[in-house]
Structures are given as C-alpha cells and as structure tokens.
C-alpha cells in the first residue's frame, strides 16, 4: 500500500442557486469593489489515504467524495489533485 494526498472541491450544481455567492456579489457591488464578480462558492477538503496505486487512489477518492463529502442531488465535486506522498 502507498499513501496519497488528495485535494477536492465540492460545489453546488449549476441549476441550484448559490445564495452565499449572491450575497457576496451584492456586498462587493455595494462596497464599490466590483460590479459583477459572479461569485461561486464551494467547500474544500484535503485528506490522505492508502491505496495500491494512483488509479486505485483515484477510485477511493471518488468514493469518498460521492458517499461522504457531497450530496449528489444538489452538489458536484471535482478532484483537484492526488499525489503520492
């Protein structure tokens, strides 16, 4: 078994309105910082895991994202990077 380090991001699906982002948009506009920043928000996780090899690590990370970290009804996820450590 090898150890890997994964970085993932969970965001709302495009069809779900991102309320936090809208609040931020309004705030930046009202503070005269940016007119239309078109924010999107998400959650960021890093963790380490054991796997046979990189492809295996990928599968496991995918599983963790799907089953633990996100809710597929409203969210999507993206594996940012997986590196051997």
């Amino acid at each position, binding site marked *: 078994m090898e150890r890997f380090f994964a970085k993932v991001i969970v965001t*709302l699906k495009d*069809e*779900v*309105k991102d*309320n*936090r982002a*809208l*609040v931020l948009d309004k705030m930046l506009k009202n503070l005269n910082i940016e007119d239309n920043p078109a924010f999107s928000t998400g*959650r960021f996780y890093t963790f380490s895991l054991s796997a046979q090899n990189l492809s295996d690590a990928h599968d496991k990370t995918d599983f963790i994202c799907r089953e*633990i*970290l996100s*809710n597929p*009804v*409203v969210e999507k996820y993206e594996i940012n990077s997986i590196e051997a450590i």
Partner: protein
Amino acid sequence: MKAAVVVFLGTNCETETKRALEYCGFDVNYVNFDTKNLDDYDAVFLSGGFSYGDYIRSGRLAKFTPVVDALKNYIESKRGVTVGICNGFQILCEAHILKGALVENDSSRFICKNTSLELCYKGKKRKIILPIAHREGKYVCFDDINEFVFLKYLDNPNGSMHDVAGLYDAKRRVMGLMPHPERAVFAKNFGFDGREFFEIIKDEIKRG
C-alpha cells in the same frame, strides 16, 4: 402507541418532541444514535437540532450512524411510520430515504417565525400555522415529487422549490417536514396546529 425519538450527538429538540408526543397520547422513548433495532416502535421520530454540528452539510453525518441503518430496515420491513422534523428531514434527505435536498435559505439567514402552510391530507386541503426555525430549509429537487407533497408554504419563507415544506416517500410511510409541529402544541402564540399533525401520524400508523 409507542414512539421512538432518535437522539444524535447535537440533536436538540428531543425534549419538546417527547413532551408533545406524550401529550398527544404516545408512549415515548429516546433512542440513541447507536441503536441497532427499532422494531419495538410504531413510529420513529428524527427530531430537530444540529446533528454532528451540521458539519459538511446539515444532516449529512448522521446518515452514517447505526440507527440510520436500523431505520432503513424499519422502513423496508414496513413496521411503522417514520417522521423527520427539521434536522430530521435533512437527515432523511441526505440518507436518500426522501427525495431532494435542503440547502441554505435564500436569505442566507436563520429564520425563526410562524409560517402559514397548506396541509393536504387525504385529498383535503387546509390552512395551518406552524413555526419554522432553520438556516438550511430550502427544499430542492429536480424530480417530479408533486404527488408526495403534504405540506406547502403559503408564503414561501426560504425559497423552497414548489413551496415544499414537507413530503412523503413513494410508499407513504416516511414523512419529512421543515416546520416544527412539536412547538405548536402547548403555547397559544405558536398555535395548536401541531396537535393535528400528530393526530395525522396516529392515523397513518393505523392505516398500516
């Protein structure tokens, strides 16, 4: 009738749920998140609160506890009725026992107030008032769930799709709702419509 009120770490509406249920004629036990069997009970209530601090997202982590596995068996075996209130509703959605998901209110703020609702039960529609108290109560679902909805906001406070405040599962043995019927049993200011809701649950249990 025997009811279980499930207590996760972080659950905080168990006392009033038990009190309200007892008032409405139930025998009530608390059951812990590590309970493995619920077959003793005619109804199982997942009450409100912040299970596991609502870490990751509300209701998410509770779904990995033994009692939720037990609950799946309970539902599968058609033993009794399951009701998720507020955080309980969020847990049922996260565990995919009910369709859809609950996300942050459109206002991005916690909202605590009485709301007007339309209760549809046995083909009859009636206006009732129940209090809400949540930050993540906006119901989102991209399937057609219309026939399973039993509770709708009349003055949508949180942006829920199709004004959904509460719905059944496909077999109509599981109900989830964001408003708090248990808070509308004793005090005039919150109304007494919660009592009616618990009568419906009794009805549902008898329906078998």
